[in-house]
């Protein structure tokens, strides 16, 4: 069931086209990623979904409602975490959550949310004294305190250290598992690959691909490459006869096998049958990063 439908969205600021033609739909209960370089139109797209901006063309439907016309109803149902939005320095964690809880008809229990987000020890700490990761978790908590059906999270982990980033990812997965649909805007490949069930890759205001991370990778770069040093001479034909293998080359003492599907399993099985041990075995696969280059002609974070 689609909870968000975006069709042919178009938005310009003066002469600059921020969103040219963007369409996608988000299914209930998934983590949907909007991935693209800075300035690709990601934020503008989700701001149109959140009802903060009026599209110049195309349609947006959220839970069957119009983000502008039904803004009052949707604000009860959609939690939004904006890029670079802060809180007053002297506002304490509990106060912030109690304040935001008071805006909603069926809010979550602030005290429980604080514990769930690992802010229990910081409940009376003023905003200015929180670390980057804690501020980010508080910001996520504020997006969730209204018990939303959809949470829109923009550039969630920008500026966080690797540990805080991984903790936040775990948190987002728990949010999804509790039944909230998550729309995640990001320009981190690793984040998209790890978290998202499906992704819209946006470049220069257009959707260039729409698939699961693994689907995106195998669509643009289906080949895998296996390198190893055999313990005894290997006849190339042993390998080239396998249906999964597309090429066998040698570089020094190394054998390099290129193939698709479960090529790794096929190669190791045939080696095992011939009592050959593959030393220094390494599998090289395309990453989402490679897929992105393939799709757009440039790297993501250039």
């Amino acid at each position: 069931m689609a909870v968000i439908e975006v069709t042919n969205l178009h938005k310009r600021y003066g002469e600059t086209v921020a969103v040219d033609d963007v369409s996608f739909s988000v299914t209930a209960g998934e983590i949907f990623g909007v991935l693209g370089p800075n300035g690709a139109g990601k934020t503008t797209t989700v701001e149109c979904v959140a009802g903060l901006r009026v599209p110049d063309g195309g349609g947006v439907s959220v839970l069957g409602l119009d983000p502008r016309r039904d803004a009052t109803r949707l604000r009860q149902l959609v939690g939004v975490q904006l890029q670079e939005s802060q809180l007053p320095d002297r506002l304490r964690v509990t106060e912030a959550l109690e304040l935001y809880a008071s805006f909603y008809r069926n809010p979550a229990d602030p005290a429980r949310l604080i514990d769930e987000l690992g802010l229990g020890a910081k409940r009376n700490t003023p905003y200015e004294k929180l670390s980057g990761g804690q501020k980010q978790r508080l910001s996520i908590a504020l997006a969730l305190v209204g018990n939303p059906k959809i949470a829109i999270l923009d550039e969630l982990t920008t500026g966080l250290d690797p540990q805080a980033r991984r903790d936040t990812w775990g948190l987002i997965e728990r949010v999804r598992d509790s039944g909230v649909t998550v729309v995640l805007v990001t320009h981190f490949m690793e984040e998209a690959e790890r978290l998202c069930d499906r992704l819209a890759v946006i470049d220069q205001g257009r959707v260039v691909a729409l698939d699961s991370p693994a689907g995106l990778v195998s669509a643009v770069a289906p080949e895998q490459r296996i390198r190893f040093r055999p313990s005894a001479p290997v006849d190339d034909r042993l390998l080239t006869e396998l249906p999964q293998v597309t090429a066998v080359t040698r570089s020094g003492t190394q054998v390099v096998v290129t193939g698709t599907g479960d090529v790794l399993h096929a190669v190791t099985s045939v080696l095992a049958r011939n009592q050959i041990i593959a030393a220094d075995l390494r599998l090289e696969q395309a990453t989402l990063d490679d897929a992105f280059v393939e799709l757009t002609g440039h790297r993501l974070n250039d």
Partner: protein
Amino acid sequence: MHAFGQILKTETKLYLRDIPTLVLTVLLPTLVLVVLGLIPTLREPNPDFENQSFITYFTPSLLVISLAMVGVNALPTVLATYRERGILRRLATTPASPLALLAAQLVLSLAGILASAVLLAVVARFAFDTPLPQHPLGFAAALILGTAALLALGLLVAAVAPTAKAAQAMAIPVFMVIMFFGGVYLPRVLLPDFLAEIGAYTPPGIQALLDAWTGTAPQPLHLGIMAVIAVAAGAGAAKLFRWE
């Protein structure tokens, strides 16, 4: 209504935690009064000041300090900070209206000014024998209209200033003009007549406050000008205000 109550409660806590602003807006006029009052000659009746003591003559001008501090300094700085840090924008994504935050800030500004005025009048009365405002109704009208004019000017600054720094840069000249014509820098008797006269028409309207304090009904023209400034600046602010 529940949301507004919670916003007001939260903003009140934040206001009370900001000690420097609290001192500048609520306590400063009374502190200046007490320091000046420690100088004996300033407590004696003086023909230059219509046979009042300097302290008594100067007390209404001291009130201008908190009016100006709250209206054109604290209020626009807080609102511009909230805009700069995305607090207003974030609020716009929730069912609460950023207008509720604006309203809460106005209520707090008003409360700060009232607290400052009451404190000043009471200390002046009991420590320095300055009579309480003799024309209470006129004083209330002058204070309310003068406050409204200054808060509206503050909102206008907040409306057009993109950042807190910009708000302060814009507010400083306005603040100086208000303080100068309000007779805070130089007692108004020392100003040339035409400058003193201008002060009657610049917010918060020191002449009306003085008249009411000493027992004369404020002139309708003086009060009217303040009302016009309040409405004009308020309308300008409403038209120009941006949440982001």
